[in-house]
Each structure stands twice: as structure tokens, then as C-alpha cells.
């Protein structure tokens, strides 16, 4: 693999960039792999990467039915934060956030992690109390957050309206080292690093069946033939229910469309990420200059990756109220992704009833930020059968009632 650097780009510039090779190889599937990961989204690729990096397991294939990174990983609004309330969540999201800090260097691919700060506005007394509580919890979890005043909010985000009239800003929970990253680059960077370790990333390869032998996983059927494996990881977000059915078990998951939209690009006007959960919307400005906007999920189960207009309207209305100047910007594009929602809105990283088969899903509306941490924990779980990071996220929690409910502190979880 050719290393990326400013020098390399300069050198290549002088010969019309002829020397750049493929970022990742496009091999034919082998008959057997030690580990197969289904789904080349961020979580699938990160799982594969840390299997190789941390455990030396490199006879791995990542199978993707479409193009890698084309699921929610390539559709999300890229907010990264770890100011979660419950211990298990704070642990895995903070692990992820701290890995993001050095991810560009680890992968030798600029994922543009930008710790520009994430602000969650409190606009009701209930939110004030919820975020104060979160700040207390975070202090003990090693997550750096801070409760800030409306004046400080205004100072950090001059374009914000803090005076209401309907929902004046009462303060905010501020995570200075939260931020954003470039979503495609995260997927591409991991893919390139996996490929460099000799792993096979196989696109246009849909898994259509899961083979079992003596109660153990034996391999998968795909649109490119049958492939055997010793261990199988299902990391397919919105399609987890479909894959679980192939493996013979059921999941407490509903799939719904979550939408986002961007404005036309303008010059920099907002350097932080702002989330306003009472009015239901959040916004940041991309490096391109677009205002990146999101809100709540559509209220009905759905597999089409497009959404209704009604949610867009609700979200935009909320943000025009919060940032009055965006009224004169234009919506450039709206889109949707299918998110996998569990009953407690927390993910599942777990062994399954089928031996040798593991599942990583349920990240719902907020799993971009967790990609490195999830991959780290999932790799550990698959390699060793146990991981402190994933322990609380097992499937059995739904039977036991051991939920990890984050809605406690904030309504929207991106």
C-alpha cells in the first residue's frame, strides 16, 4: 500500500498521478475464511480492522451487497460525541471518540475528525435537569462535559437565537472534544487498511442465506456463491432483522427511515455542532459550507431509503426558530437511511443463539460516532468471546429487562 502524505501527492502531481494504486483490492471470494463479516458499513469494516490489528486475525472477508459505506455510514450527519448518561454507553462512545482522535494517523487516511465541540441545548426545565445529571455522570465516567450558560451558548454560536419566544435557551451541555468527521473517509480509510492487511472486501455480494451445521455457523450463501467460515459477524444495521431470520433467530428491532438534509454552501458561520432536542432538530456546518441538518425518525416501519416530507418540514421549522437566518438559505437535498431501532434505543453487540454467529446492530440514529469503539469491542468479543465494552449490550438484556435507556437524558440521540 502506498502511503499517503503531502509529499506523496506532490511527487505524483509531477507525473499526472499515474502512480496511485487502488485504495482497496477487488478480489474474488475464496472458499473459506476464518471470519466473515456481513456488511461493509463503518461498523463491519471497523470490526474487521481491529480483528486484524488487535488479534492478528486477517483471513477475513467483509461482504457487502452494494458499495462499501453505502448504508447509513454514507448517509449520516456525522455527529460525534460521547456525553451519554448510562455507564455502558459512555464507555463505548468515549472509547470510540478517543480512537477518532488518532484515526487519521492510524489508518493513514484523513478522516477529518474535527473536535469542534458539540452543544446540546436545554429549552425546558426537564432538559436542564437531564443535562445537569449527565454532566455529573460524565465527570465520573471520564467524559469531559460541561454545563454552560445561555450567554456562553451565544458566544460560541453567534447565529443562534436564545430568546425564544417559544422556547428560550436555558443553557446547554457542552462537549468540547465532540465534533464531526467525514463519513465516507471513515469507511474508505478502514477499507483501505483492511485490504492492506490482506483482508478481502467483496462488494456487490449479497448474503442470501446462512449455513448451519450441528448448531454452529458453517458459512453463508451469497449472490457470488457459497462461502464457508468459522465465525460470522452480522453487521448490517437496518437489515439486521432479515439476516437474523436467515440465522434462525429474531431480534427486537424495528427499521424506520431517518432523514437528513443540507443547505446550499455558504461561508463559515457556525463552528460547533448544535442539537436542540425540544424543538427537534440539529445542525452543523460542513467543511464545504453546507448546513447539515437532521431531526427525528419517520414514525412508521419502512425499508425504502427515502422519507416523507413532513419530517423535513418539522425539522426545518425547528431550526429556523433556533437559527432565524437559515430562513434565507435553501434546502439543496434531502435523503434518508434505514435505521435499526431497538426497544431501549441502545445497540446490540452480542453472541447469538447460533454458535459462532455474532451480531452488531441497533445503532439506530446514532452509530456513526461509535464506529471505532464498536469495532474495537466487537473484534474483542469475536476473537475472545468476551469484552468489557460490549458486555452490557448483549441480547439477553431484553429478556432480563436490563435496558440501557438513554432517552432519559435527551430525546434525540444522534
Amino acid at each position, binding site marked *: 500500500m502506498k502511503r*499517503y*502524505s503531502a509529499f506523496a*501527492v506532490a511527487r505524483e*502531481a*509531477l507525473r499526472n*498521478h499515474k502512480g496511485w*494504486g487502488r*485504495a482497496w*483490492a477487488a478480489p474474488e471470494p475464496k472458499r473459506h475464511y476464518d471470519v466473515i463479516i456481513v456488511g461493509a458499513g463503518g461498523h463491519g469494516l471497523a470490526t474487521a480492522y481491529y480483528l486484524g490489528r488487535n488479534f492478528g486475525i486477517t483471513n477475513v472477508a467483509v461482504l457487502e451487497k452494494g*458499495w462499501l459505506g453505502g448504508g447509513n455510514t454514507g448517509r449520516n450527519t456525522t455527529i460525534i460525541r460521547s456525553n451519554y448518561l448510562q455507564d*455502558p454507553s459512555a464507555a463505548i462512545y468515549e472509547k470510540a471518540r478517543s480512537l477518532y*482522535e488518532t484515526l487519521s*494517523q492510524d489508518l493513514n*487516511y484523513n478522516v477529518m475528525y474535527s*473536535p*469542534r465541540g458539540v452543544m446540546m441545548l436545554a429549552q*425546558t*426545565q426537564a432538559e436542564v*435537569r*437531564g443535562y445537569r*445529571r*449527565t*454532566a*455529573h455522570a460524565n465527570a*465520573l*465516567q471520564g467524559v469531559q462535559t*460541561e*454545563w454552560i450558560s445561555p450567554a456562553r451558548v451565544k458566544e460560541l454560536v453567534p*447565529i443562534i437565537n436564545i430568546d425564544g*419566544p*417559544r422556547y428560550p435557551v436555558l443553557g446547554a451541555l457542552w462537549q468540547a472534544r465532540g465534533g464531526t468527521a467525514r463519513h465516507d473517509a471513515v469507511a474508505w*480509510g478502514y477499507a483501505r487498511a483492511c485490504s492492506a492487511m490482506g483482508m478481502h472486501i467483496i*462488494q456487490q455480494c449479497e448474503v442470501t442465506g446462512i449455513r448451519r451445521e450441528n448448531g454452529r455457523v458453517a458459512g453463508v450463501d451469497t449472490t457470488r456463491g457459497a462461502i464457508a467460515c468459522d465465525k460470522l459477524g452480522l453487521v448490517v444495521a437496518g437489515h439486521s432483522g432479515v439476516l437474523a431470520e436467515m440465522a434462525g433467530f429474531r431480534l427486537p428491532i424495528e427499521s424506520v427511515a431517518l432523514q437528513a438534509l443540507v*443547505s446550499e454552501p*455558504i*461561508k*463559515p458561520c457556525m463552528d460547533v455542532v448544535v442539537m436542540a432536542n425540544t424543538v427537534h432538530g440539529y445542525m452543523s456546518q460542513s*467543511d*464545504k*459550507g453546507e448546513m447539515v441538518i437532521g431531526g427525528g425518525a419517520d414514525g412508521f416501519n419502512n425499508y425504502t431509503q*427515502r422519507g*416523507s*416530507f413532513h419530517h423535513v418540514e418539522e425539522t*426545518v*421549522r425547528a*431550526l429556523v426558530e433556533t437559527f*432565524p*437566518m437559515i*430562513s*434565507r*438559505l*435553501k*434546502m439543496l*437535498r*434531502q435523503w434518508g437511511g434505514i435505521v435499526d431501532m431497538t426497544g431501549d434505543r441502545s445497540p446490540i453487540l452480542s453472541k447469538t443463539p447460533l454458535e459462532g454467529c455474532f451480531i452488531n446492530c441497533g445503532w439506530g440514529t446514532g452509530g456513526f460516532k461509535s464506529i471505532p469503539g464498536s469495532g474495537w469491542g466487537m473484534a474483542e468479543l469475536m476473537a475472545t468471546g468476551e469484552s468489557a465494552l460490549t458486555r452490557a449490550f448483549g441480547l439477553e438484556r431484553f429478556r432480563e*429487562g436490563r*435496558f440501557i*435507556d438513554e*432517552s*432519559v437524558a435527551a430525546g434525540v440521540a444522534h
Partner: protein
Amino acid sequence: MSTRIAAHGRLIDRAKSVGFTFNGKPMRGYAGDTLASALLAGDQMVMGRSYKYHRPRGAVASGAEEPNALMGLGEGAKFEPNQRATTTELFEGLTARSQNHWPGLEFDVGAVNGRLSRFLPAGFYYKMFIHPRAFWKHVYEPVIRQAAGLGRVPGGRDADTYEHFHCFTDVLVIGGGVAGLQAARSAAASGASVLVLEQSAHWGGRAPVDGGTVDGAGADDFVRETVAELEAMPNVTLRNRCMGAGVYDHGYALGYERLTDHAPRAGGPRHRLWRIRARRIVTATGAIERPLAFAGNDVPGVMLASAMRDYLVNWAVAPGRRVIVATNNDDAYRTAITLKTSGIDVLRILDARSSGGGALMQEARALGIRIDCGRAIGRVSGGKRVRSVAVCAQEGTGGALEEVECDAVAMSGGWSPVVHLWSHCGGKLIWDEARAHFRPDPERPPRGADGEGFVIPAGAANGELALNGILGDADEAGKTAARGAGFKPARSKAPRGETVEEAPLQPVWLMPRHADAHLRAKAWLDYQNDVKVSDVRLAAQEGYHSVEHTKRYTTLGMATDQGKLSNINGLATLADAIGSEIPQVGTTTFRPPYTPISMGAIAGEARGAIFQPVRRTPMHGWHEANGADWEPVGQWRRPYTYLRDGESQHDAVMREVRNTRQAVGLLDASTLGKLLVKGPDAGRFLDMLYTNMMSTLKPGKCRYGLMCSENGFLIDDGVVARIDEHTFLCHTTTGGAERIHAHMEEWLQTEWWDWQVHVANLTEQFAQVAVVGPDARKLLERLGGMDLSAGAMAFMEWRDGRIAEFDARVYRISFSGELSFEVAVPASQGLAFWEALMDAGREFGVMPYGTEALHVMRAEKGFIMIGDETDGTVIPQDLGLGWAISKKKEDYLGKRAQARPHMTDPTRWKLVGLETVDGAVLPDGAYALAEGVNANGQRNVQGRVTSTYMSPTLGRGIAMGLVLNGPDRMGEVLEFPGTDGKTYQARIVDQVFYDKDGEKQNV
């Protein structure tokens, strides 16, 4: 110097001169001009700078597909960035500024990026700026951010207003060209209601410019007559300046009407968003011409051939005096002919086809235009304006055969149907080999609930490019739409269109075909984002083979024009680079809106004070006038406290608590949810909803009840009163009224649909006042009326009666521990009742109290509060509320869940009281420390504060909290670190701080 010509100008009124400014410079145009045509007429060729390389750019198109000529329009609170000059109608006083340059349009420092372009290929930022780590956030990113972005940031609150229209129509026709008009006519003839939307200010689309005849008359005549005919039909609505923005499931569509953008002093809303339900949608959205990819195809003066024709015919503007035309099809000859007949020199027509074109070529030749077949543009030279063109062989590598000096280039790479709206909702495309474009696949339309296709493409949008074919196709589309909407189409024939026969086009994706690397690095695909042929080829070389990968890696098609000009050329380039075919590569997804629409229009009227309705109790105005310090609770506002002159919030709350405990206080409790549950199965239903037994409650009695979710968690509480055998009134929390109502309906409608129960939300029908304190009874007796003595009405009973002249329902319940009556009167009597209580209470020292005093008093009494002690993870058993869970019932919502292992775990945190050792107030939400750290290195904890207040009654801080084994650890001291750096010590105590035996409320 004006470039206005004497001929043509069908859209301008030369009698009306219009003044405007561009970058502060005063200029003039005519009524009917677009900003772009007026600028061109004033010889202002450069209109903006590109996004990445800051290249000087002029208008390349004449309509919605324009990627270059973006302006900031207006001033102050009416400023708006990124407006296309090509779709901006000129008006007196318009102020326009070009964008994305510093210090100015003519000289822009950012243009250095262009010099460095070879160091900034596609995706360069993924490979660079990796080290040192801190530099991305602090150095590289800020620089990139500053360089990126296009327009200036609008200032402050928008001075304009916006509105929404909702409408139903049988047939929606999008596009008011000849196809749209004919489709509307044939659909309307069936009697179906028809709505026609046209994005521009003019009907007729391209046909009047392109020529040809309809039933023997000119296209202009056809358009005029058809519009007149449609206007006269009562079942037809025509709307121009109204763009079909998006098509969604179930025949839902958006129209975006620009009401005053062209006349800002007209008053009224600026934009109107049409929210349309149509049974059938006809997309007659036309086609867009493709640029040709040759080196220097972005130099100002290089223009789509059709756009150049538009400027001539519509606005009498000649973008150049010495023009070269490059084409791969016959249509561009029309431009050459129009130029020539307008007195402009056409130096060459470079036709990439080795055998040239058909009849139009003959016509051009007859006019004396030189036509070179098999020729191509090797490179356009020029900086801010075309200077010359190097001519080469199309089949070669770009070796120049001659250099021709000229000042404009018209190019045509063929036409692509506008398939966006067809595709928004899942319509699929097929590749038309002969015409080299994607068009709607009739077999795979977007389908509605009935399984039928609900979008019908018509005319050029359906791949028909000749006038007769367009009219026939549109006529049929209108009939199909009418039929689909349930109407019988009238028998009629399509009008007959006549145009010159055209020779077939030859696809040209790169000019010349074997252009070398240097030329490819100057051949633009996406103008605005500066994506060139070399970038797409680099993406392909690096394995970004999926069209989505290429798009994202290079940013092809991601600019404000969303690739209207670049998409097909881009994917053809990709297909070529990876040795694949265009249909295999496929397109990226088309997403709404068709062109960008204002956020203002999306938000509509709902902003400021009417962003969401404020719900008001009948006493709202009284509170307002009497010092209420408001707290939003859901959509309600409730007085947090009532401030007296100079009083702090805290002092006011303390005063209200003291007064209520010592004398009497009034609380406006009208916002509490009041759900009437009625029917023979009402008791059985409530037994399932509440953990308590409600069916055994006697009429006249009240019971405090708990409601849990299916997962066992406590979701609401409140007092249930049995009104009669079949009727219950359930009180919910203020925030819970709508939620619990919906919860009840969900169970009734999906699970117990055969139970005879109705639920009605009566919250706003009653005003409710809590009269609380030792003098509460005396106060009510002073008003006179029903007997409220302890003998007549015991604790937890209710009675109907009259108090003074008011119809009252009195509940003897208490959330404060004091003697307390909650009195409900009809909402219309609420204010008078409240005022009567204040009057009569004066001698007892009555004072109103707000939500915070309510909270303090309930906490002193050890009562839980939904949202404080509960957070969606707490079960009643955690809160010591086991007594409210019926052991006799077979089932209730949450019962099974509460038997799950984690719910019965003895180590669940339980409710206790907490008292700081030094009397201070514990910080809200603080956690109690335990020994050590967990496996993830997080500090172990053993409890948390759920409510904490200063108690004026006890003169110290009191709190409640959930603590590991709490009830068994009375007297133990726990440590709570605050976020203020201090650690608070608090003792575990009983949670009832006040009147443990309930003597006060039972008098």
C-alpha cells in the same frame, strides 16, 4: 458596451428600462430580462468564481441547470446567497453581488488554487493533512473552511413571510412547455381537475425558441391558444413561477411558488409551498442539454448551444460576435443558424460526427457557414473570456490543426431528459442507446398503494425530442393520467407538430476522443465543484468504481445544481475509465428538491410566537398580570412562581411555600390531564392500564393510580375518580395528557378493540384550582355553597355541587400534605372563580403559588414526581410504591415485565430521603460514589439524587434519591461530588420529611 442586438427579444419590453446594480456598479436592462441576460447585455461575461479553483466563470446555461452564475441578492434582512442569475427576473432596484472571491471578482487571490490544481486532484484532502495531528483542527480545516462555502451568510431574522397551500387534484402536470400544456389539455378534457406548474414566468418552454410548427401555426401561437383554452376551463389551475420540487409516496408532491422574488415591493408572502395530493402526476419537465468535455470548456464565453439560442431569441443578447459551434448532433445547428441570421459571425461548426448532420446542416451551409466534420475543440484559450479555439480531429489526441480566434463557443453534447421527479419516488430509468440518454422505464414507474404507476412522463422528459413526438406523447400521457384518476378521456387527436428531420447523434464523452492527460486535466465535468475528466479517471484508477464512490470522492454532481449538467458526462467518463458500459454504471440517486427551495418556505408561517401554539389556561392572563415567572411545560406555560417587587425567584418560592403551609395558597392546576373513560368495560380497561385495582372503586371516591409501560416502567400517575358505574375521570400529569390519551387509544384500537370503552380528553373543558393550606376549607366556606366539612366529604372523595355561583366538582386530595381541595369548574367560569377565591381569601392571606412551590411541598411530603423520580428506567417497586400495585389482579400493563430477573433484582436502587450533613442543598442529578472503578475504568457509583430543594419548612436542604439498598441503610452518609469541585455529604433518611402521620391533610 451593449451586446443587445436589434432582432429578436420575444421576452423583453424595450420600452421599459430597468435599473439594477452589480457589485455596486449601476447597470440597466429591460423588463423581461433575467439577471443573466441583463448582465450579458451589459457585456458582463464573468459572473462568479468556481468553488475549488476560484476560476472566473460566466453563465453556461440559461435556466435552472446553471452552475456558475450564482449571486448574492438583496441587502440586510432580505439578503440571500447563491441565487441563480439565469432564473432571477430583473426588477428595478435589484442589487446583485458575485460570490466566492477575495478581494474582488476580477482579481481573486483564491485563484492561486487553480495554478496549484495539479497538486489538488480529486480527494487530495484524504491523502494530505494527516500530520501533525493537531493541525487538522487548528490549521488546515479553518483554511479549507474559509476557502470553501459559496455565498455570504444571511444576516439575522428574515424580513419576509412564507405560507403553505394544501390542495388535492386529480392530475398534477409539472412543466408548462408544449408537452405539459398538451397533457393538461387532454387530461382536462375528461373532466378531471388539473393543476399545471411551470417554474419560469413563461409558458411554452423551449418550443417557441426552437421553432417548428403546430397544426401549421408557430409554436408561440399554439402556446398562447392552449393557455387561453386552459385558463377558461373551470377544472384547470395554472401556476407559473411555481416549480414541482419533489414527488413523494402516495401521490404527494411539492410545489414551490416564488410569489414576490421578481417584485419584492408587492407585499404578501415571498414564497408559497404547495402541498399537493394528486391521483396522477405527469412530469413534462423537458430535457437539458449536455456540455461537451473539452479543455477549457469552462472559460467564460463557452456556453450551451441552446442557452446561446435562448439569449438571442428571448432576450436579444449576443454572448459573442465571433462564435464557434461544437456539436455531436443536429440541434446545435439551430443555434448557428439563429446566430448567423442575427448578424453574428459563425466561424466554424465543428461537428464531431465524421459525416456531419442532416437537413439543418444543409441549411447552415446554405447560409455560408463553414462546417468541419469529424472535428473537435482541442482547447479553448482565454482567461476571463474566450480568446481562441484550437481545432483538432475528434478521433485524435488533440494535436491542433488550426487556431481560430473567436469570443464565444456554443457547445452541444446532446440532450438528457429531466427525470428527477420521476425518480424521486423510485421510478427507474433505462439507457436509450440511440439518443445516448437515460429516460424513464415505462415498466418500472413509482407505484402507489394500488400497485399502479402514479407518475407519467411526457414529451422530452420521456425521451421524445422532436416536436411531433412530444405532442403525441403528451396527449397520450394526459389521457393515461385522466384514466388513472378515474375519468374517461375524451376522444381527440393530438395536434400535429412539424420540424426538420434530424440526423442521429453520435455520443461524444470526451473531445477529442483520445485527449491526453493535460487536456483531460482541463476538461470540466462539474463546473461549480471543479471536477474534471482527470478527477473521475483518478477515482476510477484508485478503485472508487461505484458511481456513488466516484461522486463522493470527486464531489461530482454535489454542487448546488446537483449535477444537472455533469451527471451523464461524468458517468460516461467513469464507464470508459473502468471499461464498463453506462447502463452498468448507472446513475446516482435523484433526491428532492429539483432545484433548491428556501427553508423559509418549508417552515411556512410557523415561526416566532406562533412557532408552536402556546396553550393557556383560563387564568393565564391573571397570572401574567400578577408577576408570573413562566416555565414552559409542554405547550403550556405555567407560573414557576409569582414574583413580587424586587423579590428573587428563590425568595418568592420560599414565601409561597410558607404561606401555603401556614395559611392558604392557590395553584392553577388546569393543565393537569383529565381523561374521561366511559363505557361498560371502563373498569376492566383501567384495571389493565393502572397497577391498582380501579374497577372496585366506588362512585364518589378517588384513588391514586400508577401507570406502567409494557416494559414495566412507571410512565404516569394521577388521581382517578369514579363518576358513576360506567364513568371514570383519570387525572394525568400536565405533560402526560396527550401521551396517555394516545396510549389508551392505542391499546383500545389495536389490542382491545372489542371492549366497550370510549376515551375523551377533557383537559381544556375544566379550569381546576387547588385550594391548599390550613385555611383552605374556611376560604371555600366563605364563598358559600356545598358542604365541604370532613363529615360530608372525607379525604380521597369527590362531590359535585355549587360554590357561590359556580358549578363545581370538588376533589379532596392533596399533593402537599396540607388540607386541600381541588375544585374543577367549567373552563368558561375559571377566571371568575379564581378571582372570587382571591377576593374571599384576602382575609386569610391567600396567595397564588407556582410549580416550584408545588414541587418543594411534595418533596417535603416525600411524594414522587413523574420525570424527577422516574426517568423511564424506574419501576414502582423502586419507589416504595408496592402498595399501589394490586396483588389480586391477574394482569396489568407491565406486570409480566416487572417479573423479569433484572426487575426483581434485590440490588436495584431504591428511593430514600437524603439530608446533607451541613444543611446545604445537594446538587441536582449528582451521583453517590462507591469504591473503585468498573471494568471500563469508570468510577463506581451507588445512587443518585432525583429531587433536591431548599425546604423553608425545615430550614435546610432536603432531597430524594435512588440508592443501592437504600431503605436498609438509614443513617449512613454518602458522598456526592458536584460539578463545582465540591463533594457533598448526605445522610440516608426517610423520604417523608413533613407530617409523617398525615395529620394535616386529614382535618
